[in-house]
């Protein structure tokens, strides 16, 4: 079984962000980078499926500058078999339709039985790429999956809805699955597997070879939201902070009365 997993490298969301000189994206300097959280579930599910079937070949795809190879190595250490690095220094400016177009172009003649993506990225958060890939390849896609089981080409899935309700759906492969938090427990790569990953194949493909679609939207501006204010910010030493907070709670809420 051939499996494709699509991952993205994103900044740690606790980073201190700045807007870059163009005024249309965040500055990429002084940030810690990691695998998009949703994609960790996608990688894990692909690896679990291979383990279940006792055979399989997992390609992990990532679009970005050379820096994304670090994140790709983590997914190789988690159990993917090879990497396809689509080299693009301008990846952050690409909108979901372009990203999906590149993935579909890569995948179109490779007979992947399953394609896993995260349900969204933590930075853009558009939630479009996985579904668009399915549309472009003409195969079904199911989004926001929190339970997955595979048996002889049939997928039993649960989609998560609001309020913790789940929708039970069945679909046949080939298919695209977009993974939601909690789908599984992503493994930590072990040291031997990190060593093994270093020897795994990492193909490099130029974005120009795969980008065949035109963008349909453009970012005009990026900025920090206006602070609505009102909120009090307390800083200092723990005991002092506790005294201040208790005073406020006594004054403003009935809780400590």
């Amino acid at each position, binding site marked *: 079984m051939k499996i494709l997993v699509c991952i993205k490298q994103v900044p740690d969301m606790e980073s201190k962000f700045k807007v870059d000189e163009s005024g249309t994206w965040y500055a990429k300097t002084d940030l810690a980078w990691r695998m998009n959280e949703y994609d960790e579930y996608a990688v894990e599910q692909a690896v679990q499926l291979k383990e279940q079937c006792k055979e399989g070949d997992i390609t992990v795809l990532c679009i970005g500058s050379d820096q994304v190879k670090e994140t790709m190595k983590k997914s190789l250490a988690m159990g993917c078999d090879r990497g396809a690095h689509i080299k693009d220094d301008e990846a952050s400016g690409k909108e979901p339709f372009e990203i999906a177009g590149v993935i579909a172009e890569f995948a179109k003649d490779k007979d992947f039985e399953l394609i896993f993506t995260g349900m969204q990225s933590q930075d853009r958060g558009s939630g479009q790429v996985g579904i668009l890939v399915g549309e472009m390849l003409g195969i079904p896609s199911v989004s926001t999956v929190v339970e997955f089981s595979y048996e002889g080409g049939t997928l039993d899935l649960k989609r998560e809805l609001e309020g913790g309700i789940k929708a039970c759906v069945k679909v046949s492969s080939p298919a695209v699955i977009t993974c939601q938090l909690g789908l599984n*427990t992503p493994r930590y790569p072990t040291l031997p597997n990190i060593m093994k990953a270093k020897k795994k194949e990492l193909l490099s493909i130029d974005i120009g070879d795969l980008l065949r679609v035109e963008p349909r939207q453009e970012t005009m501006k990026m900025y920090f*939201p206006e602070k609505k204010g009102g909120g009090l910010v307390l800083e200092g030493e723990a005991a002092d902070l506790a005294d201040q907070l208790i005073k406020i709670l006594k004054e403003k809420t009935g809780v400590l009365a």
Partner: protein
Amino acid sequence: MKLLLIAESREGKLLGGSYELMAFAQELGAETAMFLVGSEADLPKYDGTLYLADVADAGEYNPEAHRALILDVIDKEKPDSVVFCHSSYGWDLAPRLAYTLKAAQISEVVGVADGNMVVPVCNSKLRREVKAGTAQTVITLQNGAFGLAEDPAGTPTVEKISGGTGTVIEFSGFELAEAGGVDLAKAQVIVSAGRGIGKPENVALIEGLAKALGGEYGASRPVVDSDWVEHNRQVGTTGQTVTPKLYVACGISGAIQHLAGMKKSEFIVAVNTDKDAPIGEVADVLVVADLKQFVPVLTEKIQAL
């Protein structure tokens, strides 16, 4: 400008997000028509044409069929934009429709500025203004970003539609969230643990503060996904919605899906090491501190009162 609003229902019940679509249309001063796969027994309060497909025929989750039905309505109404809620229904269906329409899709819109759509970036730490390059667009709206100023009123002119089919994805029913356990909705005080607690042992700190304040403890999703706290204590869109007198968010960044479950609390305190964490937007007091140091000290002082 004309918008086609895609309302939502589940098991025949209209979902509240449908009114946020109307609020968005009002803000733009746009003409509207509405589409709903639902039931005649629960129609939106809306003055306008409602294209209604019966959920018994079109299915609860059948994106192929729903897309086909919407495309028929688009043919008739020729809207400039098709507007969905950014919900499990909307974010699943919108890209499929946008693909067929060859339209730009702009996700999770929170506002409009100079004719461009404003969307959040990086857990709402930043905003982005997006301009569509296609004449027709598909838009999804962030949960709670638009609200009607007045209670909705009106009676739709219902036009029944049918005909969508879809066979690729087979929907076999809903599974409800586990019932039982604590009823957070009844608690006057809730202290919640976020990923910032670092390890499961620290749930005890949060529980201890909750007890000292005479309340219950809750959690954000990652803490529940890691099985550190049971699901019925999760606060947010895929957990519970709570409105206690006091909500204390410890080590919680303030993602929109968490805020949706607690931002109507009467008084909100956040404890976070990151002064810029988005939880600061809704907090009455943001204590910039390491919860592992601060929470035990606070608990002790409250116990000593």
